Structures are given as structure tokens and as C-alpha cells.
């Protein structure tokens, strides 16, 4: 399912991105499956799992043993100024470490389900969606490309941050930074698996929508449509929703962790920046002015992307019912077709394509808005505490 969906440059780029993601996750051992091209199925392999565990454990150990970010003097000053920042920083470090380990653990534990889901997706792709023309998935391609771009940017900004903030360059530092970046890459790839899967679901739902539209147009043009096509689409929609539900259930804990972690990272960087610039009355040098904002921007970009993917899928799910409404103004519709259409719409009224992570919150723009406000007020309160400490 990774083959280029067209001939254009963008499609090539997309397939390149997907392949790169696949390859990277194989190398980092967070994708413990082997692809059997004959039966077109994925198989879980113990060896890859063990390999992945070893690699990641080694990386984490490397980070822990040469962690050099302690003696960057800006941080020291910030921490000296308010100890709250130091505590937050420590908590955040611990949190992110736990996140990494937890993600890997979850990925291995649920690998059976992931395998089944992916196989079913490939099966769907091969059996049903292969026949549909594959040109204008512009937003699909766009999102895949953005995702790849965001991963690359994250890595770059991480490197910049570590190398830029650290006073003295030595071997230990480079070791630590490289291992850190590798672990980060692993986390990002693990998240991106979920997003790619979501994007695929979106693409399929989009195709279903387009087929429905085609039916509407045929009916409007006076041609007849047999009910079985609608039923077929309904069953496809059914399966897609099922896959989606299972997917969310597999990935929800990781996603919650990652979201919370990134959000707190954003807030922390703003917070440090503010302390450092405003209340510490430092003169702003170019290094600082470049490094911290770019990390911030990249983080925000990645975060908004992860929300936007889910929101896109959700909106597409909503469109299905609006498209079904178009069947209203078609006179002398066939009995069977009408019945299957009404079945379809009843189904839509019962279940829709939504992403709720362990029932805590739905992932869409609304939630993103809430989170933004939340983090803003969080920032306000932090600064207030900073005032207290003056």
C-alpha cells in the first residue's frame, strides 16, 4: 500500500516519505513486523521485538550516562532565579522518559492488534479501494508530507537546541545528543504510525463519500442505481469505522502521553524564555532569540498537525451525512435504494468518525482551542508565581 499513487512529483515524495518512515521504524525497532509480499500480509517477528527492546534500552542508557545539559549556564541562572522552573524541568524530564518506555511497551504489547489492523487495512486497500482512481487525494498527500516535514524539523530543532545551548563541545555531548535524537525519532515515528493510519482511514472514507456523490449524480441525471451499491458502501463504511475504533483504542494512551508532553514542553519553553528575558533582565542575544522560538514554532506545528489530521477525518465523516441529504431531492427514487439510503443515514446518526482518547476528550479543533486557552492560562499562573518569587 506504499506504492506511489500516481506519477507526479508529489506522489513520489509521498511514497518516499512513507517508505522512509517504514524504514526508520524498522531500524529503530519500533515496527516489529515483517511483510510477506506473497500473501500481502504483515507478520509479527519476535526477533525484531527483542532487537527493538535492546536498541532502545541502549539509547536510553546512553542518554542517562552522559547527560550534559546540566551545566549550561543560562539554565543555571534561570533555575537560580526560580526553583519552580527547576522542579518543572525535572518533572518534565522524568515524564518524557516514562513516556518513551511506556510507548515502546505499549507498541510491543499491542503489536498483535496493530498487525491485525494493518492487515485489514491493506486488505481493504487491495480488495476494494484499489479500483478507484487515485489522483486527487491532495489533502492525503499534503498531510503525509507535512508529517514527514514535521518529523525532520523536530529533529533539527532538537539538535539546534542541544548544540546551541551547550557551552562546551566534547565527545560525551555528541553521544548524548545523538542518542537523544534517536530516541526522539523513535517517539515521533511511533506517533506518526497512528497518524498515517488515520490518514489512510480518512482517504477511504473520502472515497466512500465520492462514490456516494457519484450515485447522487447518476440518479440526478435520471439513470438508475441498484441498491446493492449503496449496501456495499455501507458495509465498507462499517468496516472503516470498526478499524478506526480499534486503532484509537490501541493508540490512545500513547497519544494522551505525547500530547500532554508536547503541550507542557511548549509552555515550559515559553516560560523559560519569559523568565530569562523579562524578569531576569538579560540582554537578548541572537542565539537565544533564534533557538528557543524555533523550537517553539516547530513544536506548535507538530502539535497542530496531529490535531488537524484527526479533525480532517472527523469532518469527512460529517460530510457523509450531508451527502446523504442530497438524496432527498430526487423524485421517484427506487424503493430499495431509498431503504438502503435510510439505513445508511440511521447508521450515520448512531456512529460517526470521531477520535476520543480513552473517553477523556475528543481530538478536534475545538479541543485544540480549549488546550490553547488552557496552556495560555497555565502560562499566566506560572508567571504569577514568578512574580511571587520576586
Amino acid at each position, binding site marked *: 500500500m506504499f506504492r506511489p499513487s500516481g506519477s507526479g512529483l508529489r506522489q513520489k515524495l509521498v511514497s518516499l516519505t512513507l517508505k522512509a518512515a517504514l524504514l526508520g521504524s524498522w531500524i529503530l525497532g519500533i515496527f516489529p513486523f515483517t511483510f510477506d509480499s506473497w500473501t500481502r500480509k504483515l507478520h509479527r517477528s519476535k526477533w525484531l521485538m527483542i532487537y527493538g527492546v535492546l536498541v532502545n534500552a541502549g539509547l536510553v542508557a546512553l542518554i542517562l550516562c552522559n547527560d550534559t545539559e546540566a551545566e549550561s549556564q543560562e539554565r543555571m541562572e534561570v533555575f537560580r532565579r526560580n526553583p519552580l522552573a527547576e522542579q518543572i524541568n525535572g518533572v518534565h524530564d522524568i515524564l518524557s522518559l516514562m513516556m518513551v518506555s511506556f510507548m515502546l511497551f505499549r507498541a510491543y504489547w499491542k503489536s498483535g492488534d496493530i498487525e491485525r489492523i494493518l492487515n485489514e487495512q491493506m486488505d481493504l486497500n487491495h480488495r476494494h479501494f484499489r479500483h478507484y482512481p487515485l489522483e*486527487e487525494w*491532495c*489533502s492525503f498527500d499534503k498531510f503525509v508530507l507535512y508529517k514527514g516535514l514535521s518529523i525532520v524539523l523536530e529533529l533539527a530543532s532538537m539538535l539546534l537546541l542541544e548544540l546551541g545551548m551547550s557551552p562546551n563541545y566534547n565527545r560525551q555531548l555528541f553521544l548524548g545528543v545523538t542518542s537523544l535524537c534517536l530516541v526522539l525519532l523513535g517517539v515521533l515515528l511511533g506517533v506518526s504510525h497512528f497518524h498515517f493510519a488515520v490518514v489512510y482511514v480518512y482517504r477511504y472514507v*473520502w472515497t466512500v*463519500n*465520492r462514490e456516494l*456523490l457519484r450515485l*447522487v*449524480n447518476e440518479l*440526478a*441525471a435520471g439513470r438508475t442505481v441498484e441498491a446493492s451499491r449503496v449496501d456495499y458502501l455501507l458495509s465498507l463504511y462499517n468496516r472503516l469505522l470498526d478499524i478506526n475504533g480499534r486503532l484509537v483504542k490501541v493508540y490512545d494512551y500513547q497519544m494522551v502521553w505525547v500530547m500532554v508532553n508536547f503541550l507542557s514542553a511548549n509552555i515550559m519553553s515559553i516560560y523559560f524564555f519569559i523568565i530569562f528575558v523579562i524578569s531576569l533582565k538579560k540582554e537578548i542575544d541572537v542565539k537565544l532569540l533564534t533557538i528557543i522560538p524555533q523550537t517553539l514554532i516547530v513544536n506548535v506545528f507538530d502539535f497542530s498537525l496531529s490535531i488537524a489530521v484527526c*479533525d480532517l477525518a472527523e*469532518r*469527512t465523516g460529517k*460530510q457523509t*451525512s*450531508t*451527502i*446523504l*441529504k*442530497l*438524496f*432527498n*431531492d430526487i*423524485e421517484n427514487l427506487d424503493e430499495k435504494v*431509498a431503504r438502503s439510503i*435510510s439505513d445508511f*443515514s*440511521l447508521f*450515520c*446518526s448512531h456512529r460517526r468518525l470521531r477520535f476520543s482518547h480513552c473517553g477523556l476528550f475528543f481530538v*478536534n*479543533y*475545538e479541543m*485544540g*482551542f480549549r488546550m490553547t486557552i488552557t496552556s495560555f*492560562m497555565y502560562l*499566566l499562573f506560572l508567571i*504569577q508565581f514568578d*512574580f*511571587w518569587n*520576586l
Partner: protein
Amino acid sequence: MSPNTWVIEMPTEKSRSRPYPQRISPYGVHHPSRDAFTRTRDPPTAATPTKIVDHPVFEDIRTIMSVLKASGLMPIYEQVSDYEVGPPTKTNEFYSFFVRGVVHALTLFNIYSLFTPISAQLFYSYRETDNVNQWIELLLCILTYTLTVFVCARNTKSMLRIMNEILQLDEEVRRQFGANLNENFGFSVKFLVGIAVSQTYIIILKIYAVKGEITPTSYVLLAFYAIQNGLTATYIVFASALLKIVYIRFHFINQLLNGYTYGQQQKPKQKRNHNGHFRAALMDNFPEDSLFIYRMHNKLLRIYKGINDCCNLILVSFLGYSFYTVTTNCYNLFVQITAKGMISPNILQWCFAWLCMHVSLLALLSRSCGLTTREANATAQILARVYAKAKEYQNIIDKFLTKSIKQEVQFTAYGFFAIDNSTLFKIFSAVTTYLVILIQFKQLEDSKVDDSIPAQT
């Protein structure tokens, strides 16, 4: 791109292919006073494709349109016929481009002067918190206006498409019912005047507030600042006027549907302006009417979504901007009131002017959105009130109802939140919270001052 952008070509063709018999509108036979788009001529000859210059389309919101056209926010479209508008001519397009270019240049100059001491005399401060507030407010204003210009430049085609769809819809309504849908959009003119007045008032206040000799650059800055605010506000008024138009259409089909409800069937006495022979031929022309209504409803929903997509970003930024402005002004008011001694009437008037303008705009926006949304969702409820003996009628009714279970439309600000009457409420409760935090900051500063005094002594 979402699929349902290229679907809707279908119903329009159909409606062109097979015109309906003339029928009586629920508004009664049209009297020429409330005539939509042509002032003098009567409906049957209205559909002639010849280009008439002196019967401009959308003349009921003419003034605001002209303002927007002049400021390059709206394309200066050509009127092909009474029911179609064409893309602007080269010269007009160039004019719009030119205006936008000027605006962007001014914006750049504005930002530059904000970060340089040129404008120092304008933005003096009472205390540092307020100073920061004012800077942020200015930046937000600039951002909003620039965004508005950009989005409008990008959405020119879709705006034209929406207008064309509205016109087609009106044409169909006209052909079916001879009804001319319009109301007076006096509120738009009133708001325009109000905005202009408040902006000038604010400028004057500012000029009085500034000490010393005022440099021409600061005059330019002030003028441009006022223009930015005014045009953004004007665009909001325009959006709500569009929504009002859609609302009228929705209301029309709801009224039409309302003629079939059992309430009308049972009550012998007149209720809402239906004339007698309309109910005489009840229910037998329900099928094609229902088809017409469903099609209209779909089209209207599409127009609604189109408007929503066009002014998504603008609405978000405007809401943020006005939210911030309202908060800071309330804060200033509070400071002024609770401050011992120095209460400057200048600042009070300034705050009041801002508050009035923004609160009224918010109220207008949320109200029009709420009305339109409620009307759009009311169709299913009204249809649920239609009781029919015959099976096929019941099927017609079910067809619609089944598809409208739990499918309420919403006018969202880029999906962040829905805009309706409750939005106003939410915004004000949020304002209170932020106000509380700001006041806490102020008290912190004060208490710090108190502490520092005994520390020194």
C-alpha cells in the same frame, strides 16, 4: 479538497431543465414594494438575460458593498444579468490589487514605526502593564486587518460563486412563487455610521490625549489605525448581512413548509399571513413542493457552508481581537474607577467608545449567526409537524427526517467553537475571568510596592 464542492452542479441543471408550474408563495402574492432585485419591473419578465445596468444586484446591501469594493475587500464584479454576476473587469481587478498593495505597504510602515520611537508620543503609558496591553492590542488589530485583506483576496472567486448561487436560488423562487425575498438591511447602514462615528471620536480623543506637538507621521498612523478598525468591523457587518440574506431564504422555505402542517390543516381561522385559497389545494401538490423545498434546503446549506468557509479565519481573528479589546478596556475602566484620585475622563470615554463598538459588533454577529442556524435546523422540526394520510407522503417526510437526526448544522469559527447566541455569553464570562487575573496582577504589583516601601525604610 472536500468532495462536496463539485457535487452540487447537478440540481441546478435539473431545475433549469424542468421548470415548475407557477404557485402562490406563503408570503402571499408579491406586492411590488418588497421587491428583491429589480425595483420596477414585475417578476415574469424579470428573468430576461439582457444586462440591465440600473437594476443592480444586491442593492439592498448596496452601501456596505460599495464600501467594501472601494477598500478592495470585495471584487468589483460585473453584472451579467439580473440573476448572475460575472468576474470583475481588468481595470477593476487592477484597482483592487492596487488598493491591497497600498494597504500592505501602510501596514509595513505601521509595524516599522511601532518598533521605532517614531510613534513613541502616541503610545505613552500609564503603567507598564497597560503599555504592553496597548502594544498587543495594536498588533492584534494590524494582524486582523491584514488577515482580512489576504483572505478576501484569496476568496474572491468563492465569494462570487456564493453570490451567484444566491441569485440562482432567488431566480428559482421567483419562477415558482413569484415571491421576491428581501428585507430592508437598514441595520447595515446604521452600523456603518456608528462605526465611523466611534472611530472618529476615538481619534479625536487620542489627539487630545497626546501631549505636545503631533507629528504628521502620527497623524498617518492614527488615521490608518482607525481605517483598519473600521474596515474590519465593516467586514463583520457584511458577513452578518450575508447571513441575514440566507436566513431570509431559510425562513421562506420554512414558511412554505409550514403551510402543510396539521395546525394549518385544522385551524379554519387565519394564522400567519396565508391567504385562503392556498390551503384549499392542500397536500395534493405536496410532493413537488417537498422536492423543491429539499433542493432549496440543500442549496442553502451549501451557501451557508460557503459563507462559513469564506469568513472562517476572519471571524476567528476578529473574535480574538475584540475579546482582547473588551478585556483590556474593562480592565482600564476598573483601574480608573477604583483608583484613588486620578480619574481622567479622557480614558473613560476612550474605553466606553471601544466597548460600545465591539460589544455591539459581537452582539450583531452572534445574533445573526444564531438566527440563521436556528432557522436552518428548524426545517426538520416543521416537517415533523406535517401529517399525511397517504403512504407516499409519509415516505417523503421520513426521507428527510431520517437524514436529519442528530445532524444539526453549526456556524463554527474554524471549528474552534460554534458561533451562536450562547457565544456572547461565553465570551463575557471569559472576559470576567481574564479580568480577575489581570486585577490580580495589578494587586501583586501594588503589594510589591507596599512591601518595597517598608523594606527601604
